[in-house]
């Protein structure tokens, strides 16, 4: 071993110590929550919430129980179902519209498209607050969506309160289009002009070019966009709070706010189990497709 390497060695060790310490910083709140969530509420003392509940092996840590998770599932069940009813169509529609808009504004070349595109993507940064009151007015007083929706309740699995989820799906679709368009445009700029031009000379219409050439080449981008939109819409509280407001259509983030608090104090195991349960779908997506998520957020 050379002296140069000897000199570098303590530095490398210090580097890894810092990296591991930072990893601990990011993971501790989540792991502490996980350990607490699998403690039976009766035996929970909170003396060392970061340790696994291994009584009687580790005294004072409480005993292992999945009861907080089953209680949380009972309390959040409907909210989780509503969130899925909301998130899946809103993700698919915003992705699809975003892809189509990006194609129409990138691969077909015409004057004025940059202006439209700039206006479209500025929408990414508009705070939700700027549209809340009009949206509440729109969905409750202008569009009689509730009565329009009523005949659909004869269908199986459709309930009257689902109209609020429809309103929320449309809202999230509209608000998701700007970021989806941005993500797809970055991808479509890289597509080869020659290939599209060749198809065009063969007499292919704009629609055919999109369906046959662009769409199949966008599949990796759809994965990025869907993962990003799924996370965003699942995690949102504000639109749900102001458009659904309350009642049977409440989504999981709304239900989570008030969980685990009662007259007798805070039930931390239940609250942590509920928080993790509400986060589970996005956590699973993140763990499975972390790279695609990173690609989405940095675009």
């Amino acid at each position, binding site marked *: 071993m050379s002296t140069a390497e000897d000199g570098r060695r303590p530095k490398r060790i210090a*580097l890894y110590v810092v*990296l591991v310490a930072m*990893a601990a910083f*990011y*993971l*501790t*709140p*989540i792991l*502490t*929550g996980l350990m607490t969530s699998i403690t039976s509420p009766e035996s929970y003392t*909170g003396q*060392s*919430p970061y340790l696994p509940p291994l009584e009687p092996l580790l005294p004072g840590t409480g005993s292992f129980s999945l009861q907080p998770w089953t209680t949380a599932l009972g309390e959040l069940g409907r909210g989780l179902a509503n969130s899925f009813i909301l998130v899946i169509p809103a993700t698919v529609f915003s992705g699809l*519209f975003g892809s*189509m*808009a990006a194609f*129409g504004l990138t691969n*077909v*070349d*015409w*004057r004025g498209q*940059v202006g*439209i*595109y*700039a206006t*479209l*993507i500025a929408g990414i*940064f*508009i*705070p939700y*607050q*700027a*549209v*809340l*009151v009009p949206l509440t*007015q729109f969905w409750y007083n202008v569009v009689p969506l509730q009565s329009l929706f009523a005949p659909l309740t004869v269908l199986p699995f459709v309930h009257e309160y689902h109209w609020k989820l429809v309103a929320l799906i*449309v809202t999230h679709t509209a*608000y998701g*289009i*700007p970021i989806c368009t941005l993500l797809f445009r970055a991808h479509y700029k890289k597509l080869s002009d*020659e290939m599209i031009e060749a198809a065009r000379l063969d007499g292919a219409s*704009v629609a055919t070019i*999109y369906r046959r050439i662009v769409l199949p080449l966008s599949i990796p981008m759809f994965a990025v966009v869907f993962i990003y939109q799924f996370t965003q819409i699942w*995690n*949102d*509280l504000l639109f749900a709070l102001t458009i659904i407001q309350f009642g049977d259509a409440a989504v999981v*983030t709304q239900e989570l*706010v008030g969980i685990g608090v009662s007259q007798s104090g805070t039930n931390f195991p239940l*609250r942590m189990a509920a*928080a*993790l349960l*509400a*986060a589970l779908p*996005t*956590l699973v997506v*993140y763990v499975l497709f*972390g790279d695609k*998520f*990173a690609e989405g957020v*940095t675009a």
Partner: protein
Amino acid sequence: MRELIARVRDRWSDSDVRTDGGEAASTRSLLDRDSVRSAPFWLPAVLLVGLFVYGAVLWNFVLSLTDFTGIGEPDYSSLDLENYFVAFADPVDGFLSMFGLGGEVQGGTPAWSSLTVDPVWNSLGNTIVLMVVFAAACLVLGLLLAILVDREIRFENTFRTIYLLPMSLSFVVTAKFWLYMYNPQTGLINIALGVVGIGPIGIVQNPDLKLGAVAFALIWQFSGYAMIVYLAALRGIPSSHFEAARVDGASTIKMYWRVIIPQLRTATVSALVVITVFALKAFDFLFSMYGGYQPGPSADILATRMVREAYANQNWAYGSTIAVILFVMALCIVGPYIYSQYKRGDL
């Protein structure tokens, strides 16, 4: 190559001279324009965004000029700027109060209320403090992490995944985790403080610590984002720049300070824009942390104030007014950014 693409573009563009000519050509070519033929693709998106985003923003501005409160329909017959005068009432003392100076700030009594309505100075001040502290800390921490991760480490993917993990969580969820961390009896922060002989402190309810506690939790959630942006930028710097600085005998710190960090300007600006806009949106976090619309005056930001005025107090018009202020703030941050992107041809 570039010429070829330009020629291809030309053939695609509106100015394309069609060979069919004749009388019918003018109407035909109008329908045949690429802007029209591609309309089925971009028009649905433009209509949806136009109606639900920009239409709603305009409508919100009109609402801010009304006296709309309580239940019922807004009355658009008399529009005035009264709400803005209430929002920015007592400008001198109000402005100074954002920096902890000046005298007592007086509210105003608008036509739609029999009570005194507070101006926005307090929540505006908190918003700016939160934005600056949160953005600066995220960028610094993100940059340091990116530099560490960029040093050819092992398990790079694992570290990156862990650092970005909190960003995949909902504000509502992270607020629950941090409420638990800050808890005076069983919270890890207080347990740690107890080891060094401080505490326990009720961090979340303490007016002096509240905003710091919120900022800290938000830094935890979003610094990973800054790291990812910086890491991508660092990877884009040719390794010859690193080597040239090495050969010159510059120390590592000097090399980063003099050679590398100046090249990260674009990354810093784009991360900064995104992160400040996140701070404007921190409503979800505060709502979840404080279990409702009342975070208390020392943690009240414009985002919470707006929703509280509109949805808890039903002062819809005043809520819309605060929303316009938020919108203008976002515009001031984003407008120049998008314009500079456009100028550089990056759009």
